[in-house]
C-alpha cells in the first residue's frame, strides 16, 4: 500500500471518529459511540502495524518512512511542512499509542456506560489519539508542537470532562496552563534551534548538532544549549517534572481511563520522547543533560515520598507516574536513551494496566477512591486483582517482569555512564525502594488484608469489555520486558535471547559512553537494587497486613515530616502564595492604578487642559454687554495702533 495513504488513514481515522462522535455529541448511545471510536483507533492500530512491518523489511541503516503532505507554514526560508516520519523511535510510540489506546477505548465502553455524554467523551479521546500521533509522527519540531499543544488541549477537555464540578474544571485549567508554561519553553527552544541551524527537521537537526558538537564543547550561552534548556522546560511541563509536576496529581479529576491513557501511558511521556528524538542535539549539550538527570532523579525521589503517604488510589498512581517519569528523565539525562524508551514502553503497559485496574476498582466501589475504605477486594474482583498484581510486580521491578529490565537498565547507565554519577544511582535505588513500598501498600490496602468496604457497597467484577484490556495489558506487563533483555542477563539465559529493542533502536539514537562495563559490577548493582526493593516490599507487607500499627507509630514519630509529605511539600500552596496570587494582585493593581487611574487619567488631564482653556475664553463671553463693548473698543484701539505704527 501507498505510504501516504497509510499515514493518512492512520491519522485521519481518529479524526473521523472525533467528527462522528463530536457532531452527535448529545447522543447517549454509549455502545455506538464507543464502537465507532474503538474501530477508528483499531484502524489506526492496523495501519501502525503495517507501517512497522514495512519498516522491519527495510535495510537497517535507513529505516524511516517519510511522508510529505503539504507545506504548512512556509515563510522566507522557514519551512514547517505537514510531513511525517515513522522510524525506529516513532514506530514504538505509534504501536504503544494505538495499541494501548485501543485497549483503553474498549475499557471505556464499559466504564462510561453510566455517563450522560459518552459521545463527547469518545470524541475527545479520539481527538487525543490524533494529536498524540501528530506529536510522535511529526517530521519537524513544529508538527510535534502541534501535537504537543493538541494533547494538552485534549487533556484539558478530558480532565474537566465532568465540568459541573468546580474543582475538576479548575484541575483541567491548571493542567492546561502549566502545560502552556512548558509550551512557551518549547516554542523558545524551536526558535533557538531555528536561529542556530535554520531548520527544524529532526534528521537535519540531529546531524547538524553532531557536527557542531564535534568542534568542541559548547558554552552555556550557546543557542544550542539554551535551546536544550528551553525544550527541557517544555518537557518538564508535559511530563510533569519538578517544578511543573503539580498539574498531574490534580489531573486525576478526569475519568480513570483518561488517566490511564493520557496521564500514564502516552501524553506524559511526550517529554521523554521529544528528548529521545533530539538525542543527538542533547548529546551536544552535556551540561543540560546533567540538569535533566538531576531533575529526573529528584522528581523520582520526591514523587515517591509523596506517593507513600497518599490515601487516594488515583493520587498514589499519579505520584507513581511522576516518579517513573523521573526515572525516564534520569535515563535520558545520563544518555541512556534506549533504556528510557524501553522504560517508557513498559511503563505504558503496567501503568495503564494499574490505572485501568484502579478504574475497575473505582467503578466497582461506586466512585470511591479512598483506599482506606477498600480491602480484600481480591475475592470480589479476581481478574482485576490478578492483573493488578502483575502490574505491581512489574513496577516494583521483580526480576523477570518488564519493569525490572527497563528500570535496572536505567540504573545501570546512571552508575556507569560518563554522564551519570553514583549519587544519582543512590537516589534512583532509594526511589525504587520507595516505589516498592507504596505499591505494596496499595496492594495490601486494596486487594489483600481485611475488608473495610463500607456497608451498602457491593464490589463486583467488571464486565468483559473492561477485563479484557486488563488481561491483555497484564500479559504485556510481563512479557513486554523480554524484548529488551540486557546483555549481562541474556548471557546466562538459555538460548541467549537477543536485546531486540536495543538492536532496533541503536541506529536512531545517540548513546552515552560507559565508564565501566564490568559484568560483576553490573550484577552486584542489580543485586543491591533488587534486595532494596525486596526489603521495602516486605516491610510494607508487614506494616499493612501483619502489624497494622506500624504506620501509626511512624507517623507519630515524625509528625511534621509526615504532614509535610502528606501535603505534597506544600508546593501548590507555595505556587499560589508566591506566584499566582501576587500575579493577580499585580494585575489588579495594574488595572486600578495604572490603567484606570494613570493612563486613562492622563487622557482626562489632557482633555481637562483643553477644557480649561475653553473655559478661560468662555469666561470672556460673560453676557455683559459693556464687556463686549469694551472688546470692541480694545479691538479698535489695537487695529488703530497697528495702522498708525506701521
Amino acid at each position, binding site marked *: 500500500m501507498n505510504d501516504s495513504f497509510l499515514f493518512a488513514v492512520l491519522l485521519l481515522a481518529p479524526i473521523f471518529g472525533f467528527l462522528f462522535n463530536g457532531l452527535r455529541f448529545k447522543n447517549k448511545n454509549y455502545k455506538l459511540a464507543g464502537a465507532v471510536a474503538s474501530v477508528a483507533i483499531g484502524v489506526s492500530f492496523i495501519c501502525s502495524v503495517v507501517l512497522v512491518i514495512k519498516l522491519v523489511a527495510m535495510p537497517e541503516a535507513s529505516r524511516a518512512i517519510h511522508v510529505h503532505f503539504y507545506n*504548512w*507554514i512556509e*515563510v522566507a526560508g522557514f519551512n514547517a511542512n505537514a510531513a511525517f516520519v515513522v522510524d525506529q523511535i516513532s514506530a514504538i510510540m505509534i504501536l504503544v499509542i494505538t495499541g494501548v489506546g485501543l485497549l483503553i477505548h474498549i475499557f471505556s465502553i464499559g466504564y462510561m456506560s453510566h455517563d450522560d455524554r459518552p459521545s463527547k467523551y469518545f470524541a475527545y479521546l479520539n481527538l487525543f489519539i490524533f494529536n498524540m500521533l501528530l506529536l510522535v509522527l511529526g517530521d519537524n519540531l513544529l508538527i510535534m508542537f*502541534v501535537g504537543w499543544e*493538541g494533547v494538552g488541549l485534549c487533556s484539558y477537555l478530558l480532565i474537566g470532562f465532568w465540568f459541573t464540578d468546580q474543582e475538576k474544571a479548575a484541575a483541567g485549567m491548571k493542567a492546561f496552563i502549566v502545560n502552556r508554561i512548558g509550551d*512557551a519553553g518549547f516554542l523558545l527552544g524551536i526558535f533557538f534551534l531555528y536561529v542556530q541551524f535554520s531548520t527544524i527537521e529532526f534528521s537535519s537537526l540531529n546531524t547538524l548538532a553532531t557536527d557542531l558538537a564535534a568542534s568542541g564543547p559548547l558554552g552555556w550561552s550557546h543557542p544550542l544549549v539554551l535551546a536544550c534548556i528551553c525544550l527541557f522546560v517544555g518537557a518538564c511541563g508535559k511530563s510533569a517534572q519538578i517544578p511543573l509536576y503539580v498539574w498531574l496529581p490534580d489531573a486525576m479529576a478526569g475519568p480513570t481511563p483518561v488517566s490511564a491513557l493520557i496521564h500514564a501511558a502516552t501524553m506524559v511521556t511526550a517529554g521523554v520522547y521529544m528528548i529521545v528524538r533530539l538525542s543527538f542535539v542533547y548529546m551536544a549539550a552535556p551540561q543540560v543533560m546533567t540538569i535533566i538527570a538531576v531533575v529526573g532523579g529528584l522528581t523520582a525521589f520526591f514523587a515517591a515520598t509523596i506517593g507513600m503517604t497518599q490515601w487516594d488510589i488515583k493520587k498514589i498512581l499519579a505520584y507513581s507516574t511522576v516518579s517513573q517519569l523521573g526515572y525516564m528523565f534520569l535515563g535520558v539525562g545520563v544518555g541512556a536513551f534506549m533504556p528510557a524508551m524501553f522504560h517508557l514502553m513498559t511503563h505504558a503497559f503496567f501503568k495503564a494496566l494499574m490505572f485501568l485496574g484502579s478504574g475497575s476498582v473505582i467503578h466497582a466501589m461506586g466512585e470511591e477512591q479512598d483506599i482506606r475504605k477498600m480491602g480484600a477486594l481480591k475475592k470480589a474482583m479476581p481478574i482485576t486483582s490478578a492483573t493488578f498484581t502483575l502490574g505491581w510486580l512489574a513496577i516494583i521491578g521483580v526480576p523477570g517482569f518488564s519493569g525490572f529490565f527497563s528500570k535496572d537498565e536505567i540504573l545501570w547507565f546512571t552508575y556507569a555512564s560518563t554522564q551519570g554519577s553514583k549519587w544519582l544511582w543512590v537516589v534512583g535505588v532509594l526511589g525504587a525502594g520507595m516505589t516498592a513500598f507504596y505499591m505494596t501498600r496499595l496492594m495490601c490496602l486494596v486487594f489483600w488484608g481485611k475488608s473495610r468496604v463500607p456497608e451498602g457497597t457491593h464490589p463486583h467484577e467488571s464486565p468483559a469489555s473492561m477485563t479484557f484490556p486488563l488481561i491483555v495489558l497484564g500479559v504485556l506487563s510481563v512479557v513486554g520486558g523480554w524484548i529488551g533483555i540486557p546483555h549481562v542477563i541474556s548471557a546466562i539465559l538459555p538460548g541467549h535471547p537477543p536485546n531486540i529493542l536495543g538492536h532496533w533502536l541503536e541506529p536512531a539514537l545517540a548513546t552515552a559512553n560507559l565508564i565501566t562495563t564490568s559484568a560483576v559490577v553490573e550484577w552486584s548493582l542489580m543485586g543491591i537494587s533488587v534486595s532494596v526493593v525486596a526489603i521495602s516490599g516486605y516491610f510494607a507487607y508487614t506494616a499493612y497486613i501483619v502489624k497494622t500499627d506500624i504506620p501509626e507509630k511512624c507517623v507519630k514519630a515524625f509528625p511534621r515530616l509526615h504532614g509535610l509529605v502528606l501535603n505534597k511539600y506544600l508546593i501548590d500552596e507555595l505556587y499560589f502564595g508566591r506566584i499566582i496570587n501576587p500575579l*493577580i494582585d499585580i494585575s489588579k493593581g495594574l488595572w486600578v492604578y495604572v*490603567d484606570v487611574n494613570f493612563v486613562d487619567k492622563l487622557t482626562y488631564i489632557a482633555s481637562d487642559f483643553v477644557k480649561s482653556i475653553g473655559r478661560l475664553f468662555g469666561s470672556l463671553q460673560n453676557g455683559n454687554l459693556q464687556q463686549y463693548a469694551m472688546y470692541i473698543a480694545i479691538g479698535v484701539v489695537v487695529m488703530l495702533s497697528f495702522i498708525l505704527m506701521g
Partner: protein
Amino acid sequence: MNLLSVITFLPILFALVVWFLPNEKHVRPVSLGLSIVHFFVSIVLLVKFDISSAGLQFVEQTPWVQSAGISYFLGVDGISIWLVILTTFLTPITILGGWTSIQKKTRGFHVSIFVLATTMIGTFLAMDAILFYVFFEASLIPMYFIIGIWGGKNKIYAATKFFIYTMLGSVFMLLSIITLMVLAEGQLGQMSSSLLDFYKLDLNFLPGQFLSTQTLLFFGFALAFAIKVPLFPFHTWLPDAHVQAPTPGSVILAGVMLKMGTYGLLRFCLPLFPEATAEWGWIFLALGVVGIIYGALVAMVQPDMKKLVAYSSVSHMGYVVMGLFTLNAHGLTGSIFQMLSHGISTGALFLLVGMIYERTHSREIKEYGGLAVVAPIFSIFFIIVTLSSIAVPMTNGFVGEYLILMGTFMVNKAYAILAVTGVVLGACYMLWMVKKVFFGPPGKLIKDFQGKNLDLNKTEVMTLLPVVVLIFWMGLFPGHFIKYTKASVDHMINAKQGYYLKIEGRQKKVATIKYKSTRVTR
C-alpha cells in the same frame, strides 16, 4: 468601471437602497443579501489577483484636486487584499450579529454599517495619502453613530472618547501628509499626495536626533496609527468603546477598524521612513511587548466579559505591532496573518458575548457558571473561538503568533522571551473566563434560566459557522492565505531602503499618461 471602485462604493449604493426601502421589515434580509453579494464581488478580486506580483494591481487613478496633486487613486497589493476581504466577510456577519440585538432604527443602523464598509475598504485601497486620510477619518462618523445610538448605558461618553481620541492622532497624520506634499513639491517639482510619489522622496534623517524631518514625520504617522491600533499606552478608549458599543459595532471595531492602524503602520511608516523605523522601531517593539503582557494581565482581572475581550485585543494587537517592527519576512507575514485571524476570532468572541448577553442581559463573569449545561452548542462555539484566540495550533491564531514570535526572536531574543509569556497569560485569562462562565455549578444567572432553552438558534449557528470554518481553514492551510501576501512582503523586506511600488497590468499605461499630462498642465 474599475473593480476596486465597485468594491469600494457598492456599499454606498446599498446604503441608498436600504434607505429608500419602502418597508422597514425588509431591511434586515435585504441588507444581508446585499452584503453577501458584496462579499462575492470582492471574491472576484481574490480570483483575479496576481499573486506573483508585488506591485499595485487593479489601479485606478483620476485627478481630483489637480493644483495640489491630489488624485483619486485606488490600488491593491498583497498587503491590503486580505483586509478588504476581511471587511466584506465581516459585514454580513455583523448584520447577522445585529439581527436581534438591534431593535431600534434598523434602517439607520444598516445604512451606517454599509457606509462604514465603504470607508474601511477605501482606507485599505486608497493609494493617495489625502484620499486615505479622508476615508480614515470618515470611518469614524458611522462608527460614532453606531456606538452613540445603538450603544449601552454610557454610550455617548464612549462614542465621544473614541471619536476625539482617534481624531487627535489623525491631526498629526494630516500635518505629516501636508509636510510630505510640500516636500514632494520641492523634490519632484510638483505637489503630489500619491503614495508612490511619497516613496520616492528623500527625507532628511539625522541618526540619534529626534528633531529631524524623517523622525518627526515618522512619529506623526505612528502616533495616529498607534492610537488606532491601539498600542499601549493609547489603549484606554478601546475598553470603553467596546463595552458600550452594540455587538455588531464591537465586531467591526475589533475586526476591522483596529487593523486600519496596523495597516497604516505597514503602508506608511515602514516604507516611507526606513531609517527612522530602524532607529526608533525598538520603541514600538517594546510597546508591543508591554502591550502584550499588560493587556493580558489586565484582562485577567476584568469582571466584565466584553472588557476582558477588549483587553485581550490590546494584547493581540501588541503582537501585530511587534511583528511589524521586526522588519523581517516572518514578522511581517505573521503580522498580516494575525490581523486577519484576530479580526475573525475576536470578532467571533464579541459576537458570542453579545449572543449570551441578549439572553441574560448581564456580562458579569461572576454571575455566570455552568452555562455549558444549558447551552452546549454555544459552549462548543465559544471554546473553539477561545482556542483560536489563545493560539492553539491548527487554529488561525497560532500561525500568526508563531511567525511573529519567531520574527521577533530573530531580531531581539529578550523581547521574544518576554512576549512568549503572553502565550501563557493568554491561556490564563481566556480559560479563567471559560471556567467561570461555562463550568462549575450553575451560577446566579443560570439558575434563573434553568429549564429554559438558552442555546443558540439556527440564525446564530449560521452566523458562527463560517467563522469557525475559517478558523480551521486558516489554521490548517495558512499557505492559502500567505501566498497572496508573500510577494509584497518579500518586496518590502528586500527594498527596505528606497521602497517603491510598481503599477501592474493594463492600467499602467493609462495611469502614466494621465500622470504626465497633469504634470504638463501645471
